[in-house]
């Protein structure tokens, strides 16, 4: 899957959770991605992060890094 599109989608999710009170944004983003993204999508975004994760907002990057590795 095109990393650009996934980065865009992940940042969109990130914008919602970073606007919520408290400091649970990364957890919220990670939970959302785990709940709704098919493994191929998670694998692709993890691969993108492995190559530096360019374009991902900081909390989103943190969230993706916290996801269990998809093989």
């Amino acid at each position, binding site marked *: *899957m*095109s990393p650009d*599109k996934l980065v865009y*989608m992940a940042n*969109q*999710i990130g*914008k*919602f959770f970073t*606007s*919520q*009170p408290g400091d649970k944004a990364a957890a919220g983003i990670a939970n*959302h991605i*785990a*709940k*709704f*993204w*098919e*493994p*191929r*999508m998670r694998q692709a975004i993890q691969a993108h992060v492995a190559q530096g994760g360019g374009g991902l907002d900081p909390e989103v990057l943190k969230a993706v890094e916290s996801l269990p590795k998809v093989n």
Partner: protein
Amino acid sequence: MGLVPEIDYGTPHPRGLKGDTDAKMVTLTIDGETVTVAEGTSIMRAAMDSGVTIPKLCATDTLDAFGSCRLCLVEIQGRAGTPASCTTPVAPGMVVSTQTERLKRLRKGVMELYISDHPLDCLTCAANGDCELQDMAGAVGLREVRYGMEGANHLGQAKDTSNPYFTFDPSKCIVCSRCVRACQEVQGTFALTIQDRGFASKVSAGMDEDFMDSECVSCGACVQACPTATLMEKSVIEIGQPEHSVVTTCAYCGVGCSFKAEMRGTELVRMVPYKDGAANRGHSCVKGRFAWGYATHRERILKPMIRSKITDPWREVSWEEAINYTASEFKRIQDKYGRASVGGITSSRCTNEETYLVQKLVRAGFGNNNVDTCARVCHSPTGYGLGTAYGTSAGTQDFDSVEDTDVVMVIGANPTDGHPVFGSRLKKRLRQGAKLIVVDPRRIDLVKTPHVEAAHHLPLRPGTNVAVVTAIAHVIVTEGLVNEAFVRERCDWDEFQDWAAFVAEERHSPEAIAEYTGVPAAELRAAARLYATGGNAAIYYGLGVTEHSQGSTTVMAIANLAMATGNLGRRGVGVNPLRGQNNVQGSCDMGSFPHELPGYRHVHDDATRAIFEDMWGVTLEREPGLRIPNMLDAAVDGTFKGLYVQGEDIVQSDPDTHHVTAGLEAMECVVVQDLFLNETANYAHVFLPGSTFLEKDGTFTNAERRINRVRRVMPPRNGYADWEITQILSNALGYPMTYSHPAEIMAEIAATTPGFRNVTYEMLDERGSVQWPCNDDAPEGTPIMHINGFARGKGKFVLTEYIPTDERTGARFPLLLTTGRILSQYNVGAQTRRTANSEWHKEDRLEIHPHDAENRGVRDGDWVKLQSRAGETTLRALITDRVSPGVVYTTFHHPMTQANVITTDYSDWATNCPEYKVTAVQVSPSNGPSDWQEKYKTHSDLSRRIVGTDAAE
């Protein structure tokens, strides 16, 4: 079998539809029998209650009493004269006689006059056997007409046959005004009137126009009300009177109207709205009432077909060959590309049982969770938003609830076009005095329609919903209009305080957002005050809320408003998504989403998976599957190769057509199960002919969570009901299914899904319908949710930060396109385009404001090119100030318009619901079809060829 009997009580129940039991009761005597009825009941209705039918012509229980025909006269002890029983309410101790010498003489005299001015062609009349005038002549014992037929009369007038579905024969009219009153009271269009006075009185459509040229919306209420052959269905004129009828549920929109399918053998004569239908209460619209001819349209495909390449012509094959080919292809693909390389799309047009079966086939047969449904592109944000805020992914009320509403806020919905029967019920309440707030970029009909005018119309710029709804919350919080008692009792107080502080920030004030939303601050403030203080306030919303990059956020913003003002948990209030498709609620309930098993339980949940693993005898995948847009992405990537699509046309209905077709072209086996060679079938390798709602048993669940029965009235012309086809395919794939009737599938749903625990076909047959949850906690079902608390426990306030969409206007694309529906056509139009409904809407038009049109040299009716970053198309312009300057609007009912060539692949952050409602575009004069339209037409013509027969279209 016979016709399903319906009793006409003559006048409405005085307590309306609520069936309140707190009414004061009155006891009287009618023909010597003691009767006790609710105060306010007419003598006519009380008599009917006691089993006495008083003759009548102008009265019917769907309309207010009128008292014009003078046939229902009675005598009351101690009162002078012979009052009309329809307009005279009961009183305690009243002694009524319905049949005396005096009454007999009077009635006979009245009927004699009627008949002296009525054609006596009863034998060849279309109403023969179903004519109240004929019945009354019989009832009063009319034996002669002393006046003859020679005097002044109304005979020999020209018939109006302009409406494609019914005729108007003024010669047969008795001027009872039932049609005029139905148009006013039931439909609320006010298209009919009685022109002139006295003997010259005559029913007239519009300004004495043909029905087709008048404001008439062809809902059929007048035809239904007419006691004679004056307003008559053309199908009855052609075929004759029906001999039996079956109650079933309309397969168009999410209102889910109950109809009697009136039959002669297996031929459908007419569809008649069913008075006991709890969603529609005897009303209908032009689609459900009349637009069912597609079921027998010549373009319907009845034989399975296959081909190896999408550029090949179709080859008709046996069911066995088609199913075996599909099964072998899916097995081959899964062997080669892996278990996750195939998936399915369930249909929100099909029954709950069929939807359940498709998701079961995917999860248990394919062994993955790649199943999705068209709710993805409409109300998936509703599921996410309301699930998050309240704990249930559905609307909170029943439709009857609107009768107790004082303030209605309609956001991004157009009920009079999209959900017309609910629209009529809403208008009725508004005419009684309820106030209306419309939040919509376009001036929808409700903003100003006969005897209805919105108190406030907030014409926001497309894409700014979150800002506007949050600003409404700002006014409620900063002006002290919060219902604190409700919030403290029912909601999480800490979350509320965070939310209240957030919305109170100055940047969320109406004044601060006015510049980019285009909504005048004072108007927004007034609307907010009205919503918070005007009594029972209900929000109804549609796809104008959900189909945005912040669709889910807007749903949560709406949920916040209702909680903050305490407008939940009783009649007249609530948050009500108006669902698009007939069974989109049901398809979501049935586990059509890739992350959820039936009953909205996540696939991660071990306990839920265990229930289904036990029932289905397989191990289930615990990871979520691909959503429709993700399937297409994966297909382009080469990891998704096979798709089983039951009754959905993603090429026409999904955004960014180029991307959809690229995804489909990359697949090796696309199976389309549908009635027609739809646009998606142009990219399919297997076509399995589907069945219509008339040809199968099952259930649909409407927007109010009401489970309604769908009943088979004729055998499937294609050979199988859709659930049977799924079952055969599953068996061929090696996953056995052995259902012999959809009732058995419902039993499995009930056994596995808590909200459906007590639902059975026996119960539905007995009670007509039931609203889920229906289980031991709520054996009668649940008309209104969250009565003493929220399903999730405490109501959750979520902060709703406005984040503008990245789809922005600029020099190249300076206008915003938004899309919607029109009354006569339905969705992609596959059904309605194949009926006479197209006479109202032959093509999609682009609505454009006069300023924008003038700047571009566009005149009304000109062909224009509509261009976005995603693509371009052409269509004809319609110049109107319904849209604001800077905004253009179109419908997407016609495939050659291809409005979705224009829409982008931006989508809701939470659910990937596409952002249909906002596309930056340019409009310029054009000579004709775009290159894409030409190319598409060529491919479409090519791919619809069937070997050995002429092209289907």
